[in-house]
């Protein structure tokens, strides 16, 4: 590169990376809740996210609701959908004591199915949220600009994240959710209604999915495949390390920053190659992820 990059450009790229990371983090935390607690990669989360994004769109476009109610519509839709997903795709297998791997399989099927629902209903045209939904779209700091929707993602991530940590660590229901992830039978022997606990986990994850769906929908416009962004959640969850939501959030932000960094240096085309190599190196160096607790099963 001939001309040295101006400082403001570098700063702008850092902001870009953090913004992207914030979006990923919100998606990842919702994904990681099920991943950490119920121990499987719930790709159906992407479907939930996608449909909620469209639900929010209808609320904003057809019913002309302002931002906050639109977000609420998205979250409620997400919660309902997540419960439906649990009932349709997971409940029955769990009752028959199927292994975790089956949940992965049905969850991906569910992602495809929800995507098809969107394709059938909305696939024929291009939709996007009215730009008036978020009044001020950018904040300007000198030469550096920050998109408000990303800022919203960031704030939501922080709130959702700390809320989740609190619930999982400090409340009975939160601990029960984690207990259920260890041993469903033993959980029921504690007097806990296991099904309710799992539904609760899905409701929370669905609400996060709905929230990220609406915010992502606003900033990224809509397409039926919008839910596939869930793979970022998957990457962050695994890199973050099992059992640590903090690790997941950190991993998501790092992923965002890394992507932007790679695009601004080697370009977008080959960055997946570098990301792959870095990923392998990282996993070798830190086999427990970013903040993974080194919990190995004891012989």
């Amino acid at each position: 590169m001939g001309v040295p990059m101006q400082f403001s450009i570098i700063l702008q790229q850092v902001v870009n990376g953090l913004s992207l990371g914030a979006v990923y983090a919100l998606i990842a935390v919702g994904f990681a809740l099920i991943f950490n607690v119920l121990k499987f990669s719930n790709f159906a989360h992407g479907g939930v996210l996608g449909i909620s994004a469209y639900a929010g769109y209808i609320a904003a476009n057809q019913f002309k609701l302002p931002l906050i109610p639109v977000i609420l519509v998205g979250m409620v839709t997400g919660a309902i959908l997540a419960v439906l997903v649990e009932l349709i795709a997971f409940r029955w297998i769990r009752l028959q004591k199927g292994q975790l791997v089956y949940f992965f399989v049905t969850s991906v099927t569910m992602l495809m199915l929800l995507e098809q629902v969107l394709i059938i209903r909305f696939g024929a045209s291009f939709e996007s949220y009215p730009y008036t939904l978020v009044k001020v779209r950018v904040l300007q700091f000198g030469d550096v600009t920050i998109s408000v929707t990303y800022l919203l993602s960031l704030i939501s991530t922080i709130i959702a994240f700390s809320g989740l940590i609190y619930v999982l660590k400090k409340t009975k229901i939160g601990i029960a959710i984690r207990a259920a992830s260890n041993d469903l039978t033993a959980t029921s022997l504690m007097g806990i209604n296991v099904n309710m606990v799992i539904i609760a986990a899905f409701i929370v994850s669905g609400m996060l999915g709905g929230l990220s769906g609406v915010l992502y929908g606003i900033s990224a416009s809509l397409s039926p495949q919008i839910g596939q962004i869930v793979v970022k959640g998957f990457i962050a969850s695994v890199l973050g390390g099992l059992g640590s939501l903090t690790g997941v959030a950190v991993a998501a932000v790092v992923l965002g920053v890394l992507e932007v960094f790679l695009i601004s240096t080697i370009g977008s085309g080959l960055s997946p190659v570098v990301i792959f190599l870095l990923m392998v190196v990282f996993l070798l160096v830190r086999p427990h992820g970013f903040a993974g607790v080194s919990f190995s099963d004891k012989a």
Partner: protein
Amino acid sequence: MTFYITVAISIAISSIAVLGTFMLTGMNGLFSLGQAAFMGLGAYATAILVVNYGLPFPLAILIAIALAISLAFFVGYATLRIRQDFFALATFGFGQAMIALLTETVTITGGAMGFSNIPRLTSPALAFISLAIAIFFVWGFRRSHFGKDSLAIRSNELAAEVEGINAFKHKMIVFVISAGFAAYAGALMAFHISYVEPATYGWILSVTWIIIVFFGGRDSLTGTVIGAIILLAAPEALRFTTAWRILVYCVIILLIINLRPRGLFGTWEISLKPFLRFFKSKKQQEAK
């Protein structure tokens, strides 16, 4: 070539890749989200070697498989020792990287435009015989001690290690074989449809194969093969549902996995013994 034969060939070829996934995911519980990338690698490598460098088809296939195997070895070496979801992630990353490479090396691969004008060398006989051989291979593998080792590692790796099974090596063998299967299927596919593009080989395709394995029954080779035929034919068979067909396809999968959580066929296997016995008794009768 008529429509039905074309479809049948496609199904047979994809089934070979599914068999690779059966060994890897079904028997050994390793989830690879990059299997399709090996197929892409096989497809592109063979196509380029034959079309641009004029190599004979069989030789090109061998080179492509060797390439896939070496890459699988690299990926496996780095990730098969650590947690299983890391393997899923690393293979996912590998798949993305592979697609990126195929897309970016425009002068060699044609990039997003795809690679066209591949001669149609995959005859029906080649496809079907290849599938038969692949089935036979998996059957033999599973029947030998490797089959039991697979189950042992899948259910308790530590215990398997302690009784002398080199789990890492075993997983590596299986991963490498499955990558070879996928690459071979890719080569056949490229020379069947005569066109390849990078987008085909995304993680969704890998997941589709995993779904097929679980649909048919991860503990049943018969189930996997029949499940593969059913599910690979389904999009074509469901054309009467028009735009709903993929939705219907998903619903069928969900229904089966919900109602039969161990897959369509559970652990059931077709047994050749009754046939053999039948022939034997016939021979005996004839002898008499």
